[in-house]
């Protein structure tokens, strides 16, 4: 299983990767990217099984990343990890094709609950 973690913050990428381990999802291959544009390139290059992406990033936002990915035929499961968890943003994420949205600050339990449905179906 390969997971692509996309966030412009190195600190947050480390916290996301640490929380993956703490939530019982250790042992996956992790690939990192710093924004949506790099994320698109990484999807093409690495063919991940899951994308975890921030929303608010320079160069290309997470929602533009997902929209472009889906428009190009990409079907990889995609989840947001973002500081904004309003109902409107959850609805926008779902409409664009996201499997889930995890709001920061998060807990390992929140990660496990969100990832369980996606990873559980493919492991």
């Amino acid at each position, binding site marked *: 299983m390969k997971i692509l973690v996309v966030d412009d913050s190195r600190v947050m990428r*480390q916290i996301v990767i640490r929380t993956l381990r703490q939530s019982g999802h250790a042992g996956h291959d992790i690939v990192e990217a710093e924004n949506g544009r790099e994320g698109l390139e990484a999807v093409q290059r690495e063919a991940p099984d899951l994308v975890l992406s921030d929303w608010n990033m320079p160069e290309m936002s997470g929602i533009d990343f997902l929209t472009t990915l889906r428009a190009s035929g990409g079907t990889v499961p995609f989840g947001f990890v973002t500081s904004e968890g309003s109902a409107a943003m959850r609805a926008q994420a779902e409409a664009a094709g996201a499997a889930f949205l995890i709001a920061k*600050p998060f807990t390992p339990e929140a990660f496990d609950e969100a990832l369980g449905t996606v990873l559980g179906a493919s492991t």
Partner: protein
Amino acid sequence: MTVTMEPSLGDVHAVVEEVWSSFLGAEEPILPLPTPMPPGGWSAAITVSGGWDAQVTVQLTDPGAVHVTSTMLMCGEDDCTDEDLRDALGELVNMVGGNIKSLMAGAAVLSLPLVGHGDISPGSHLVEVCRLDLTWRGEPVVVTVHTPPPPAVA
């Protein structure tokens, strides 16, 4: 109908406590104790624009900023670079600002965070509507929310 244009002090405090307890360790809670903020230190700010306009700012002393960064990165305090501090404090204000924004009505957009050593002045059209004076690990932490003033009543 009443339209709330500023978050309550209690809501902002709850957001800050949740961010701190989740990412900075529940065993060292952030305390509602005002501690004098010396000049200098670090500031991190983020703006909200759209249905609700605001600037959310977090201020920390130099030691406080290093404590935050080393805890988030799980590294030694001597290993924290200025780039690490900018990254960690940017994420901190991003989480605080994003969660406060989620409490407010109306569609709005969150900016990318701005982090600097020293003060970050809010726009001249903004006034302070909320201020939390807190203490974490013996260091002061100040969180402020600035919004445009309410329109004058004729």
